[in-house]
């Protein structure tokens, strides 16, 4: 059956460079002496560590619990002792550190008890929670938590599940090799996903430069005998493996700005994610290993099955890093990010480790002024105007850049690839995006500060009013006796209060003086009767009528 294929605009055809790493099957990399498992390996919240230093963990044990629903758990890839829970260098362009659990494997590889999970009987929410706690995230590189994507569409029922095996970026062959060896399991995983999504059909998109993978998948589909699964070979053109681009090629649906493919009834997953879902639900195995292509300037380019947390240097040791390597890249040559150091670990997002040399990737030519040729706009697969984005990003005019839909840019690098002026366009977009995110964070912080400041002022005002009200009430209560005692007009509440207090004090002192004079001398009693205030004060001082002083206060 021939399927009508569609096409996306733009795109480029770089040299695939894929043959070197597909000569040999996937090799299982031994465990390194130390595993560094970053807690934050997904889009969303950073998982909370669940283990302490010195604790023994077993293979598959959860070491980081998902923080909220937009997060994903992390697990120990081997049994061993937790040596540290501390910030470690991340495989990130920043070269900064983040919290990680360091485990020294003990070589016994003791598993946690695998509890069989009856996902067919469980509710959809239970399945999603289970996948979240199994740490399943998108393995195409975006590491978006998969459980969030596995719910039937809200605006429209999901009818099509797209399984992405296009793998368009040069050098990367991990999905290709996985499809060759695990075709049956991938499709089985896709069937589970189809059921969770309530989709009617599964379309597996594979670029036509991977005939072995396509053949293996076709054979597996035939063996499964599921008529809803269709293996579709798509033309090789970068970036056919972008989710929106592949959906467009397979279904003809062009997802517009500001909406998602689920709004049009299509959901897209990477082939390795389908396998991870199967492993989690059917075998109770959390995501602790992944396939990594090691290519570029190495002696033995190949795909390895690597435990997450393995230092990159350890992986390169096994592939034989050539001495003239000048740079290490995580990901492919088009979208990859430079790695800070050999110590950074392999994470769930690591699909490829690329060693670069001056011969393989010559240093970039000097950047020349934009000549407004429009080549970038012709190459842009997201139908943007890269030159406009470039001018506004360069001028730090971020509002205008957003008006030109900067955030629809998938950073595929086609524009920079075709640019005759060798402008590193994607660098400008990344710069602008991270600046806009920082401004949004600042704005949220400022809004919260304004709210708290206003609340504090309101509270201070309320306290002042309450105090005034209390004072008024007290003075009103005191005004009558005070006025009676002194005859003073209590127009001012404060004055009235003072008057009242003075009156009380006078009364007490009078009483005390009377007592004192009674005891001292009978003559005093006569004086007390005649010379009121003077006597009372004298008496007070004489006998130190302390209690009355305190009462005045």
């Amino acid at each position, binding site marked *: 059956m021939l399927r009508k294929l569609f096409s996306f605009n733009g795109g480029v055809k770089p040299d695939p460079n894929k043959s070197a790493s597909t000569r040999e099957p996937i090799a299982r990399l031994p465990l390194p002496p130390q595993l560094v498992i970053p807690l934050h390996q997904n889009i969303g919240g950073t998982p909370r560590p669940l283990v302490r230093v010195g604790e023994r963990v077993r293979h598959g044990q959860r070491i980081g619990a998902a923080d909220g629903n937009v997060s994903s758990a992390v697990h120990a890839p081997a049994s061993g002792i937790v040596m540290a829970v501390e910030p470690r260098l*991340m495989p990130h362009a920043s070269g*900064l550190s983040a919290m990680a659990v360091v485990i020294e494997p003990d070589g016994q590889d003791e598993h946690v008890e695998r509890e069989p999970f009856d996902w067919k009987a469980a509710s959809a929410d239970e399945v999603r929670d289970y996948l979240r706690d199994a740490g399943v995230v998108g393995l195409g590189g975006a590491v978006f938590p998969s459980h969030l994507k596995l719910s039937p569409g809200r605006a429209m029922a999901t009818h099509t599940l797209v399984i992405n095996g296009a793998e368009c970026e040069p050098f990367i062959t991990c999905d290709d090799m996985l499809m060759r060896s695990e075709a049956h399991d991938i499709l089985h995983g896709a069937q589970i996903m189809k059921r969770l999504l309530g989709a009617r059909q599964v379309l597996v998109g594979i670029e036509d430069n991977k005939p072995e993978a396509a053949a293996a998948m076709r054979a597996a589909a035939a063996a499964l005998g599921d008529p809803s699964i269709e293996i579709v070979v798509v033309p090789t053109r970068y970036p056919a493996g972008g989710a929106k681009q592949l959906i467009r090629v397979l279904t003809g649906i062009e997802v517009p700005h500001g909406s998602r493919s689920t709004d049009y009834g299509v959901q897209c997953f990477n082939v390795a994610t389908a396998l991870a879902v199967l492993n989690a639900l059917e075998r109770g195995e959390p995501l602790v290993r992944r396939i990594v292509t090691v290519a570029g300037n190495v002696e033995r380019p190949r795909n390895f099955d690597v435990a997450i947390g393995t230092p990159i240097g350890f992986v390169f040791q096994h592939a034989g890093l050539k001495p003239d390597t000048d740079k290490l890249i995580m990901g492919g040559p088009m979208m990859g990010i430079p790695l800070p150091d050999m110590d950074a670990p392999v994470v769930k997002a690591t699909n490829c480790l690329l060693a670069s040399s001056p011969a393989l990737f010559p240093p970039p030519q000097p*950047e020349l002024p934009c000549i407004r040729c429009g080549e970038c706009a012709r190459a842009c697969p997201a139908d943007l105007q890269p030159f406009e984005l470039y001018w506004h990003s360069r001028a730090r005019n971020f509002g205008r850049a957003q008006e030109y839909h900067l955030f629809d840019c998938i950073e595929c690098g086609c524009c920079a690839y075709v640019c005759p002026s060798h402008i*590193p366009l994607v660098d400008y977009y990344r*710069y602008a995006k991270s600046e806009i995110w920082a401004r949004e964070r600042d704005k949220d912080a400022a*809004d919260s500060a*304004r709210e*708290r*400041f206003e*609340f504090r002022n309101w509270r201070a005002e309320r306290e002042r009013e309450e105090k005034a009200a209390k004072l008024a009430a007290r003075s009103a209560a005191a005004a009558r006796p005070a006025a009676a005692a002194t005859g003073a007009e209590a127009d001012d509440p404060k004055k009235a209060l003072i008057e009242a207090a003075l009156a009380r004090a006078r009364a007490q002192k009078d009483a005390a003086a009377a007592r004192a004079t009674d005891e001292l001398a009978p003559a005093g009693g006569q004086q007390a009767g005649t010379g009121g205030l003077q006597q009372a004060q004298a008496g007070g001082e004489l006998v130190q009528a302390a209690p009355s002083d305190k009462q005045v206060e």
Partner: protein
Amino acid sequence: MTSALLVMVGIALALGAALGAASVLFRTQGDPLVDKIDAILPQTQCGQCGYPGCKPYATAIAGGEADINQCPPGGDEGVRKLADLLGREYKPLNAEHGVEKPKSVAVIDEATCIGCTLCIQACPVDAIVGAAKQMHTIVSDLCTGCELCVPPCPADCIAMVPVAETVDTWKWRYPVFELRTAHARTQSAEEAA
């Protein structure tokens, strides 16, 4: 003639009534300009501008009492934004009111804190928790870095610590290589001389 006059008078009355109704119906509450200025200000509530908070400063700018370059936490970019909004000329930050610093948060040395609550009273955004004779601490996510808690502390136990960059807050660097910097430097040196 009369009919034309009547028509004109009728139209005038109808339009007048419509305008009058609109002025009552669509009256704006408060000064929208103050809110726009306030939205640009960083809400540090530090008072370095000479006004007790960002809103009073915004009101003063709108009223023409204060200049736009008195807010060090807003920095150079804040001045530019205000200049854009108000259609005024950009001017560099007035050093009288302080200089732009990297974003910091206050940190209490909890071992030294005597629990006097003075800093709690000084904090404009209620970011300090504690009680009398109990240790205080600062909720760093809420701290605006205004430094108002530092002078009242009798034990001198509050320090301003610059906020470190993390993987999540890290920003890609501006890719342009400023080749003219050296030239500009010599130029400014010449000007200074």
